[in-house]
């Protein structure tokens, strides 16, 4: 009975019912973290634990991107010595992690959120301000 919708199917059938915005959490300073409080609008759509797991993984990935470790220092010093021209040929550590995040969100959307009529938008598309969760009308119940 469980129907799995692909992203394409959803586009054809569903209309946007609502959008939930998860704002940034600044309690640890300016590092990129998102509030993982479970929004009430999603209560009927998805399991709280599932959602919080996704949020926790995302927060961890962003923390990894901004981590001040030996790798970032070496990258920074090398870049300074070459007058930052090394950034023309090399991808920064942050960018590599952003790609990982994009892949993770895509995966989560395909496996977990799309079948429930939800869509997570990669925060980088929103200037790292919010995680936008689009809630689609649940047509399957009315058909």
């Amino acid at each position, binding site marked *: 009975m469980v129907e799995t919708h692909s992203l394409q199917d959803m586009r054809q059938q569903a209309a946007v019912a609502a959008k939930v915005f998860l704002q940034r959490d600044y309690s640890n300073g*300016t590092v990129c973290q998102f509030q993982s409080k479970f929004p009430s609008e999603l209560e009927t759509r998805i399991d709280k634990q599932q959602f919080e797991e996704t949020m926790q993984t995302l927060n961890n990935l962003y923390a990894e991107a*901004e981590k001040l470790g030996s790798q970032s220092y070496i990258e*920074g010093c090398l870049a300074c010595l070459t007058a930052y021209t090394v950034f023309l040929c090399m991808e920064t550590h*942050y960018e590599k992690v952003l790609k990982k995040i994009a892949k993770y969100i895509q995966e989560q959307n395909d496996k977990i959120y799309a079948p429930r009529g939800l869509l997570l938008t990669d925060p*980088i*598309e929103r200037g790292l301000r919010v995680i936008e969760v689009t809630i689609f009308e649940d047509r399957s119940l009315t058909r």
Partner: protein
Amino acid sequence: MVARQSGVLPLTLGLILITSGLFFIFDCPFLVKHLTSCIPVIGGFLFVFVVITLLQTSFTDPGILPRATPDEAEDIEKQIDNTGNTSYRPPPRTKEVVINQQVVKLKYCFTCKMFRPPRTSHCSLCDNCVERFDHHCPWVGNCVGKRNYRFFYTFIVSLSFHTAFIFGCVTTHLSLRAQGGKGLVFALQESPGSAVELVICFFSVWSILGLSGFHTYLVASNLTTNEDIKGSWSGKSGEDVTNPYSQRNIFVNCCSVLCGPMPPSLIDRRGFLPADESVQTAGADIELPDLANKSEINVCTQGTKGLLESATLPPLLSTSCPQGKPLTDPTVNFDPSPEISTSCSGARHVHHSRGRASTPRHTKTRSKKNKRAALQMANPSFDVPVSPSSPDAGPSSKARGHKGDSFSHLQ
């Protein structure tokens, strides 16, 4: 230039080029003969370093925050209204957050329609919110913020070395020439370029050295010029305030500010458009700041949204986002004529001229060739309100309508 106003960047570049040029022409030959040939090598290296870091400071996105999408703005407004009281006073436009046991007030930015993250400030010259806003530097023609602070710091430090080096070399040169009782005037007559260099270097070395020293102090304490000037963390108000962002260790502070990970540019997201490095200049280089910036951002976000929406539509649609591509074309940005509002905004103007209410009707009744364009625009969240100052909302919109049509044609 990245900033709307390029300030006096040409002057800065000119001064550096002229001074260095005169140095290589007038002083180097003499010094190489009488001292060592290392001098032009060191001079050359410093010169290249200075110019590269200057250009990077000017042309790098300082950490501009794109404006909130209309949906987001609406959501935030709702939240503000909910928490506000029911009296006639306007709802509060600040939010408080506790960082490292310090209470930090986040202000609402009316232009960008969002609560500014900590340390972010809205630059009135660039008309953008900039993360970790330091100051707007007219000498480099750009804001100095999170992403280009390290370039700026490297620039002023290398410039102080360069200026001091030239000053030292010129002084040595002139004193060597004036030896044997010949006098300074004679030396200056022999090498007139050195006089110019002497004057420029003498006056600039103090200010640049001072600036470098000041910024070294800021880096060591993880402060921004903005915070230092306002005295946000100096305890002026008498309370026990300390900088919540400082790691209390000079070395760690320096490392985190100068050698930390390089954050990505938030305004360059182009979705599935081919990686176009010229997008750096497209960021905030705007004649019509609000409108163009919004259309810029909306094209950015449309990029990936279009990707999702195009999943079901004919593959041809995927090429429709080159509508946004003209925006990345640097030449377009320099063109002040109304046609600058590229195809995306062009088509959007057509929409708008018929009124927002008719947008849904648009998508159903318009001919197929416009359907593709319309579908991308149909999502009301991307309907850009035309700013009142925009000259195109009137009769010229029809002309632009054709332009919008012709672009869909080309796809």
